[in-house]
């Protein structure tokens, strides 16, 4: 359950932004999570309710954008979207790629506040 720790870190950043912008309330938070990040969106949602309790972000909407995993095929010298889970097989030539270009993102992307 490292999702709680990750969410605590995210909410620290959100609350900091709220202070900087002198916001009284946070309405919506958007996270970008890569499909290979090893983080469960459901566990993040659960953690979100727990860690925002009693803060200006309590009751805010949590939106989670999924970032597709992409890898580069050395043989084709081209990037492709990984559609086969954690096994990155090039759809053109079938070769396995270990050169991940995206999919591990864990980012705070947007905060809406007033």
């Amino acid at each position, binding site marked *: 359950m490292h999702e709680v720790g990750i969410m605590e870190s995210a909410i620290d*950043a959100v609350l900091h932004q709220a202070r900087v*912008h002198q916001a009284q309330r946070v309405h919506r938070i958007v996270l970008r999570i890569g499909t*290979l990040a090893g983080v469960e969106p459901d566990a993040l949602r659960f953690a979100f309710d727990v860690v925002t309790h009693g803060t200006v972000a309590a009751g805010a909407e949590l939106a989670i954008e999924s970032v597709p995993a992409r890898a580069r095929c050395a043989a084709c010298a081209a990037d492709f979207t990984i559609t086969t889970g954690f096994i990155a097989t090039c759809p053109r030539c079938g070769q*396995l790629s270990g050169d991940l270009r995206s999919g591990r993102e864990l*980012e705070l992307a947007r905060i809406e506040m007033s």
Partner: protein
Amino acid sequence: MNTEPATPAEDFQIHPLSGAAARPGRQLSAPLSAELAATLAAAPAGAASVRAVDLRVPLLEKNDILAERNRGYFLGRGLAALNLVSSPGAGKTTLLERTLDEFGRQTRCAVVVGDLETDNDGMRLHRPHAPVAQITTGGTCHLDASMIARGVESLDLEGVKVLFIENVGNLVCPASFDLGERVRVVLLSTTEGEDKPLKYPPIFKSADLVLLTKVDVADALGFRRDLAVANIQRIAPQARLIQLSTRSGEGIAEWYDFLRGLLPPR
């Protein structure tokens, strides 16, 4: 973005067991993000309507910044840091014991070892010629970069060329936490299933080196090495693979060669 310095988990403790630093090491300054925060704070406050702020802040920014600091520190000292990750019982400590007794006699090594409780592993690794610090995380399921920074501070790193970080036995959580290591080593033992890489792909995906351990008992266990190797290669084609047994010594020379390859040229 956060101005507070990173603080480790509450129960987190460092126990230098051998080769403790004679005096306190470097002090950590405030995170680099403080500068960014100050810049933002200087911006005029807007009206009371709903405002949207678009950012690209890593959720583990505090950890990532400290990890980069660790990496720079290790690089500056000419120190190769390896982060060893596996399930509990895959043979991390046993491999390190043998490595310190053999490789560690020629090349000075240090160890930072993490567990939830006890300094049992630290005591097992205790050697007069190798500084060792045990970190007890007090329940946290992984090591983070701030624990490493403090653990390393407690050790005398004079002449040390290789730093082994033995992570908490866990195949899930350590995947997300960069410690500033140069090489991430994931161990899979033959007492586990051949399909472990398929079941726990994120950690294998992040590996630079995979060690298939306890290969001496593979046949007795009915463990199919070829199948395990194929699964590792499907999930982690980027990783180097070494099959070894700490007990029989198979593959150990290849592991030492790998370590030697990390040392700066003479």
